[in-house]
């Protein structure tokens, strides 16, 4: 089974990134949002992202046009019935995701693979909202989707071998990204490890052990991280990191996942990181550090 036509539900940051990456690899994409305004906004953001790549010589004007031409805007789930694979990328809200999967289950014939881009939630539970949980799988892409060549493939309890094999093959052969197999567990591998690191960095900051700048430099330069833990937190979105930590704290009941107080304070103040221009550091509207 070769996935050629792919539905992407949700046009947020991850949805945009996934849609753009798929289209740039020559696949046809149906991008779904609730209404035309949101669709136009998402499409515009993809265009902006391509313009940035053009500026950095990563693509040519012709390649930009070709990529955009492969993305169709869709507001009704019914149109997804012709896809080979649908990837859900809405916000990390279990009930909302279950509602989306219940709808997808109705419009997509049972051979179509349904994937969720969740970074931490239970695939078994998401799958339980469908009549065919065997075709439900987790595909956790990591931001920025175009340049991070890793996808966590999460098997729910009922995910079939056929679904898993087809998805892994798609990720590794077509998308040329490494697929890491993960059995369902809160936070999987990447979210669990990175959020624990970020949380510990927040404790270090709270305790006044070092400045935000020095904490990041220590890890970035000392241990060859591309970005330090606090800038990573800004880029993931402080609210997303808080939600992930809250979820893991609840599921595992282990104190090591308890979110640092400073994180809650910042989220309440609306300092959500890159997307609001301010988190532990300040950013311009293109997301570059000031």
């Amino acid at each position, binding site marked *: 089974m070769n996935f050629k036509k792919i539905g992407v539900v949700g046009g947020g940051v991850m949805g945009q990134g996934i849609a753009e990456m798929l289209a740039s690899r020559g696949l046809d994409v149906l991008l779904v949002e609730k209404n035309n305004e949101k669709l136009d906004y998402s499409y515009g953001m993809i265009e902006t992202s391509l313009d940035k*790549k053009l500026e950095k*010589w990563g*693509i040519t004007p012709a390649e930009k046009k070709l990529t955009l031409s492969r993305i169709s805007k869709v507001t009704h789930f019914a149109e997804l019935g012709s896809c080979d694979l649908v990837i859900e990328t809405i916000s990390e809200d279990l009930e909302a995701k279950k509602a989306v999967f219940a709808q997808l289950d109705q419009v997509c014939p049972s051979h179509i693979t349904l994937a969720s881009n969740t970074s931490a939630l239970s695939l078994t539970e998401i799958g339980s909202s469908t009549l065919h949980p065997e075709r439900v799988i987790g595909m956790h892409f990591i931001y920025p989707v175009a340049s991070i060549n890793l996808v966590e493939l999460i098997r729910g309890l009922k995910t079939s071998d056929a679904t898993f094999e087809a998805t892994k093959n798609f990720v590794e052969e077509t998308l040329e990204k490494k697929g890491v197999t993960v059995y369902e567990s809160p936070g999987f591998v990447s979210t669990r490890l990175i959020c624990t690191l970020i949380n510990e960095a927040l404790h270090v900051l709270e305790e006044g052990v070092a400045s935000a700048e020095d904490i990041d430099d220590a890890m970035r330069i000392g241990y060859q991280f591309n970005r330090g833990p606090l800038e990573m937190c800004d880029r993931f979105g402080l609210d997303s990191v808080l939600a992930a930590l809250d979820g893991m704290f609840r599921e595992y009941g282990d104190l090591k996942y308890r979110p640092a107080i400073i994180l809650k304070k910042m989220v309440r103040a609306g300092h959500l990181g890159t997307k609001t221009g301010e988190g532990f550091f300040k950013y311009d509207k293109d997301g570059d550090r000031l």
Partner: protein
Amino acid sequence: MKVLVINSGSSSLKYQLYDMTDESVLAKGLVERIGMDSSILTHKPTGKDEVVEVSEILEHNTAIRKVIDKLTDSVHGVLSSVDEINAVGHRVVHGGEFFNESALVDKEAKKNIRALIDLAPLHNPAAVMGIEASEINMPGVPQVVVFDTAFHQTMPEKAYLYAIPRVLYSKYKVRRYGFHGTSHYYVSLAAAEFLNKPIEDLKIITAHIGNGGSLTAIQGGVSVDTSMGMTPLEGLMMGTRSGDLDPAIVPYVMNKEELSVSEVNSMLNKHSGLLAISGVSSDMRDITDGWEKGEANATLAFEMYEYRLRKYIGSYAAAMNGVDVLIFTAGVGENSAIVRKAVCENLSYLGIEIDEELNKIRSGDPRRISTPNSKVEVLVVPTNEELVIARDTFRIVEESNA
């Protein structure tokens, strides 16, 4: 014998059908946008109208089936049955060190072409798809592969090795391979024939300059050096490729601009050359137009292009301790009298002298553009890579039948 010549790209496929009794082209065409639901097949039978068909062609297998349908079509076709195709010749970009000449396709050949995907990730996979699709659609028909690199396998070690740790050559086969070999070979042979001199006695420099460009020094009929390297990026300034540059620039710019490997590759291959300097076009016609109008950026682009081309000619004259024949071919070489004139004007130290009137003649035939006084014969020879592929295919299949 009828030979089908196929040139497979990742999402396109060009073809020509030859009748080898007189080397005439019976039909040619092109399939574009393979992998999409609106692929375009353009079919041009010789002496008949061109037909264009849009349909869903998801992979090379379907593409070749559609091409065969067209070739045997009752209205647009030129064959009564697919059985009339006696052999298929494929263009393959990279033959590595496995192939120093064209070869019959067998298990071993396919294995080697696949092994070279690592060196030519953009080109060889498409060739494999074309070969396999031909096997499915024309079972039992012998196939031959013709390589862009094969002609240059005669280069001596001193020309093909880079001055870097030798373990990189033994481990990864990092070396100069050179490209456009089929074209350099064809035009050098055609030139010797035109001059009525044995090629063994000649020192020839061939300038294949189109959108991509390479120069080859040919001594005694074999390639002794060529300007493209392990990939087609090295050497001359091209339409969108940088050609030679200080390799230290690459890590420096990657660091400054935070570029990934794929971005820096794209920068050097698609955003450099004439396009980068002129700021407007990668097409030599636009550049010479701008130069004639006195546009500063186009003028600089033209001057750089000509200067670097001329330096390479000088270095190959030095490599062979002389030059008897200079050949221009491919898009720019065959059509741009301005480029030829500018290059040759500053090669008077080699005794080159061109006749401006002869240089201006446009023709599809090999022709001389130098004066009788010129110490070097300067020729324009239109290239024909498809014909070489058809000839090699015909010869190799005949030999294997014998």
